[in-house]
């Protein structure tokens, strides 16, 4: 009799601890902080890819209003200008675009082409736009040579 009760008690304790373990298993964060961080940074770069369309859309809108008249609607430097010399940059030229860093593009738009040691034909836009808008334009210009 005593024995069976003891066995039952043992069983109960076992079930109890099992439940506790199952309960604990659901707790978040048991996989370790480092893993989660890694997962987050992976998601970060994936999210960048999703976020780009907004920047592209807004960048395109700004580009076609302010830039396309010289640089062309497709960014190939064939706008409706009347013989500008030197002719506007062709952003669809992959080889040419590889020579430019994003920082340089940003600087050239912000301070005008003269600020990066080129002609003074492209005016400075830094006082007309917010930095975020300039970044969008850079993102859009970058996308022109991507495909």
């Amino acid at each position, binding site marked *: 009799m005593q024995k069976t009760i003891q066995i039952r008690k043992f069983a109960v304790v076992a079930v109890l601890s099992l439940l*506790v373990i199952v309960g604990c298993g659901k707790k978040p964060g048991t996989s370790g902080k480092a893993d989660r961080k890694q997962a987050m940074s992976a998601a970060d770069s994936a999210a960048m890819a999703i976020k780009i369309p907004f920047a592209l859309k807004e960048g395109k809108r700004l580009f076609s*209003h302010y830039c396309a008249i010289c640089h062309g609607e497709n960014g190939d430097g064939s706008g409706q200008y009347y013989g500008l010399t030197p002719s506007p940059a062709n952003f669809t030229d992959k080889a040419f675009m590889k020579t430019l860093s994003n920082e340089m593009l940003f600087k050239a738009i912000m301070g005008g082409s003269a600020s990066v040691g080129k002609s003074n034909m492209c005016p400075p836009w830094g006082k007309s736009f917010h930095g975020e808008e300039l970044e969008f334009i850079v993102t859009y210009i970058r996308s022109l040579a991507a495909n």
Partner: protein
Amino acid sequence: MANENNNNSSLRVYLFVFFSVLLLALSIWVVWDDEFGLRPWKKYQEDYKTLKHDKLERDYKKAVVEFERSGGHKRLAELEAKLDKAETAFKSKETQEKMARLNKQLDAAHDALVVSQQELRNLRGQFLETEYYFTKTQQPEYKVKMDQLQRQIDAIGLRVAAQQKSEDSVKGSLSAIMVTKAGIQGEIAKLQNPLEEAKEKITKNNTVPVEIKQVHIADVDKADRCQSCHIGIDAKSQVSAVQPFTKHPLSFIYLERHDPTKFGCTFCHRGQGRATTSTEKAHGNVKHWDEPMLVGDMTQTSCLNCHGDIKNLRGAEKIVNSTELIKKYGCYSCHKIPGYETVGDVGPVLTEVGTKVNYSWEVKWLMDPQSYSSTARMPKFYFTQDQAESMADYLFSMSGTTRHDVDNTKNKPDAKLVEAGKALWAQSRCNLCHVTGGRGGNNVKIYAPELSKVGSKVNKEWLFRWIKNPNAYNPGTKMPRFRLTDEEINSLVAFITTEFQDEEVEYKYTQPVEIQAASIVKGKELIQKYGCYGCHKLQGMEDMVQVAPSLKKQGITFLRNAEMREKIGMELSSIGSKPVDMLDFGKMKKVISNDRLTYIKQKLRDPRGYRLGLRMPNFRLPESEINQLASVLYGFTDANVPTRFLVPSRQELDRLAGVQSYKFTGDFAKVIADVKCTNCHSIRGIGADYAPDLSYAGSKLQEGWIRKFLANPDVIRPLLQQMPKFGFTSGKPAAKITMPKFNLGQQKVEDTNRTDVDVVINFFQQELVSNDIPKKIPVIPAMTMTEQISKGKSLYDDKGCKSCHQIGTEGGAIGPNLTNVGNRLNPGFIFKHLENARKFKPDIVEPNYGFTERERIYLTNFLMTLKLDTK
């Protein structure tokens, strides 16, 4: 028995233990779920903190690297050595003695100064007293005393000045001793500050509590908790690009004016703001929640909740373009839409249409407008041949008794006349608004009819009368009167009816046929049933009332005009928040997704598709326009918005203040009604934005130039106006766009003895002046004009102005041609325009160069020298 008892009790124990364990487990689960399972935002906030910590640490490391790269350590050591040196120098016996000496000097000087100042005050008091007696008694002894006192005051005044100077010099030498030390200390702080700031940010981030972030807007009792997860939405620099940690895009537009801690998120984005237990619930993607979250361009629909006037509203570009479609298709003609009560009819007057068009054309048009012109705005009503004929019979019976066609090709006009008409067609820039053969239509928002086949549609007599005075036939028309002579009109009519012919046209009624009375009755019934009077003025149907289901809008009532006419279609003022259960999906219930946006889109796509008996015609909208229109309709809500959020339009403000909105008056109103300047120009918020804003034309333009320009318009901005900016273009832009020649200045305005040019100029100079634009620009006296002009010229060259502007034959063609700008613009305008061009046109292409005032003066003076000598 005992055994049984034993068994029973052991079963009880077993059950007891089992349920105890279950209870314990449940309790643990409840506590856990309450703490973590139902609070996913906790994890997000903790993650955000970690991410932010990482970012701040990166920033700190960057600052350290920068510190080291710029030789910070070396510099710091140097500075500290310097400081030590300065300290020892400061502590040296010599300096200390000097300091003590100087301090003593300072005290002495200060004391002397105080004494002298006291003396001076006393003397001044005495002087005033004496002066008082002198003015009262006029006795000379007082005068003598006054002179004496004045002399004393002067002497002491000099002494005070000298003492002041000596005190200052002592102070100067004292601070000279201290300055080296203080300067070095300042430099050390400057060097270390970025590092310390970065460190401080890290500590601050660690102490941020994890808590629910709720925004409660008390006036409308609306709460949202979105920022509990979207914790970095208003961060200055983005911590992570992964949701929900991102920063709001273009936050300098959207969040700066709408502080998320005061506005919350759901006013613009909808969704279920109070839900915090899961992403789906919070974003409103659950059953029976009618307001799914708005993202991307769709969010702009919410601007309509509060902004009465969205024109030129930065960040609302998409919705601005979309609302234009309401005007294009005239939705307000059949549906009640607040804000469109005063917009004119979208279709022409039909009362005398029998004198205007061919019967065969009318029938074909009624059956399918796009068979005549692919850009026709009139929708398809799916009328049968029989129905269309009855309606045409009714329309023709208002001005005659027969069905009749006129073949304009029968009597060929003189070739010379046609040639003259062609020249006139070009000179009058008809293609600016009208599309012919796929060309023209630059001013897209006018929606002028396409004229490629008009020669087979209208008859010559009507066309003559129309061109001679469009207002006489259709008082609300946008067509200007060109002030042509009868001979000129004849040539234009000859050209139009010869050039623009439909080769496939079939005339059935070149021999007139009497109209049957029964057909007229049937036609009238159809016209009433389908509400043609919504868009067209029809004799006898001016006050037609057709009551359709109308949903009264609550909330912002003051945005609506109370005396709105009842319309044939459903009221649309709250369609964007109508409960989904109240939308009749009918036959499409199982075919399309049952949500509001899909309902609206499907309705626009196939207006009669939900069930039988619907009357809305098919506009055959392209999918892009369906999306645009749906986004606008989705924004017509009865959202409960606090009154303090509302930004009423100017008209609305005027109405609230009980003021008449701006209206043209006097003789100028007559000119406007005739020439329709506001088709292209905007004046004081009235009109279109196709041509330059004339609201301040009086301050901007010179009188002589206006006269010459109106007599013979010339190209000013060759390229800009050709750009199809809004995607509404129906054809290719015509090559060279100038203002049409209206032949102004030759006729007197009705009831006056002034020509229209005089009236226009008078109005410009009296009314259209801006206080912001000075009459004259500041003068630089120290520099000769020639010098200033040459400085302006070199600025013009250095800044690359010529890439957009042309002077003579050199330069680009984007901005205005500046060859004759000295005769065209007032200097004050140029001066102001150079400061901030966007003030005059918010989306102007010209960037802000940030010129100084002097530079603007130089440039203005240079530009004012650019004059063409024309007689």
